[in-house]
């Protein structure tokens, strides 16, 4: 079974969101990395890019397939994780920690309320 962390918020596109001060950290879930297989390439936005909610901000590719990354929340990109660009397999080995992808300063923190909690995400993964 793939891991779902209790203290994170989730999007229905299989991203996780963690609050970090006035920013949020975003990555893809353990379930997402497991479904993709070994990730060989990741495309991330630039620092300073403004993202709309649900906008495509990048892509993650395994040998078999490509998945777009959708911003779970509107905001400005404040940081990207350069390590996952050079070692994309970090997303497989550590999806919730070293495999984080971007930090965003949200336009409105309240937007987080629209995301799933761990129970809601688990139901989604289980197809409930």
């Amino acid at each position, binding site marked *: 079974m793939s891991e779902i962390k209790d203290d994170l918020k989730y999007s229905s596109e299989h991203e996780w969101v963690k609050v970090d001060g006035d920013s949020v950290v975003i990555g893809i879930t353990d379930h997402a990395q497991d479904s993709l297989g*070994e990730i060989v390439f990741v495309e991330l936005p630039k620092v300073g890019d403004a993202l709309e909610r649900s906008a495509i901000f990048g892509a993650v590719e395994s040998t078999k397939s490509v998945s777009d990354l959708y911003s779970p929340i509107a905001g400005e990109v404040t940081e990207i994780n350069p390590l996952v660009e050079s070692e994309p397999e970090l997303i497989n080995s550590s999806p919730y920690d070293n495999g984080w992808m971007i930090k965003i300063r949200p336009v409105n923190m309240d937007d987080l309320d629209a995301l799933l909690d761990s129970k809601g995400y688990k139901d989604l993964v289980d197809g409930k």
Partner: protein
Amino acid sequence: MKSTPLFEIHKNMNAKFVNFNGWNMPVWFEDLKQEHLHVRNSVGVFDVSHMGEIEIVGSMAEEFLNFTFTNKISDLNDGQARYGFFCDKSGGVIDDVIIYRLSKDRFFICVNAGNIEKVFEWLKSSSNGYNIKIKNLTSFYGQLAIQGPKAVDCVSKLFPSSNIKNIKKYSISSISDLEENYVHKLKSPCPDGYSFLIARTGYTGEDGFELFVPNEVLPDIYLLVLENIQDIKPCGLGSRDTLRLEKGFPLHGNELSEKLNPIEANLSKFVDFTKPDFIGKTSLQSILRNKKSSLIGFKMNDKCIPRAGYKIFSDDREIGFVTSGTFSPTLQQGIGLGVINESFSEVEYIEVKIRSDKKIAKRSSYPFV
């Protein structure tokens, strides 16, 4: 969705599944890349029971196939096989198949999973005036592909009384070891007597075999293979696709289709124009005289992955599209095949549009590895 008799075994081995042409098939077990490299360096086994098997039986079987198949058939001896196409009148490819001659009046055809019914119906509709029987044996046969440089040695040891090493490439034979041990277990043996067949063919570019055995005993035989061949790994359709693409083998639906003919896919050598007639010959001859497009191979300059359907450009002009693309596990680089307009067939560099960016790719001959 359909599944093969190995579904439960695969589920217990934690396979990841994918819907392939309506079949719920393993896409990989632990890791696609490991499976790919294992087949290149050692030996792997694939469940390819979704593939179809059709038999043409009767005194006019050879004559019938000579007229429906693009490649030469009349020079085959018993046990020999040949790759080629069933084309429609316009030269479009109904399917690419391997035909095995079992005997003078019996030919065995391995058909792609997505095309079984279509090929069967097309063969029947083309058979007026031929004294033959066309049998769809797909539900009887399962199929295992055992592939890799160690395959011949391993399979010879597994079936010591079957003279495995004497089976030449592109040939087929009975497996007496399996016949002896399993034929009495069959509730319904193959009416034609060829219940256990082994062919030295494959789709990985490595040496190896394809086993056609009854679905009824397929799980037993699969476990026999897994438990008795040292170092063998179960492999999924994911690595099957990357293995074939590294070798530049076409996939029906990608490089070949009703709209993509064998000439423009650079597969003319499997079309025998010296035959007096075959379905599609006139169209294919005129395509040969006036090619509109070519299949090309290419490697991406930057680290990125081309995918089927991406557009190909040259100096801002759209000149074609990617038919298959992947990240080559051997080369650690994006590789692809694509169809481009014939007037650009000499260009050395192309651009592939990946999402919003055009990425440079260098033309490459294939096989890529």
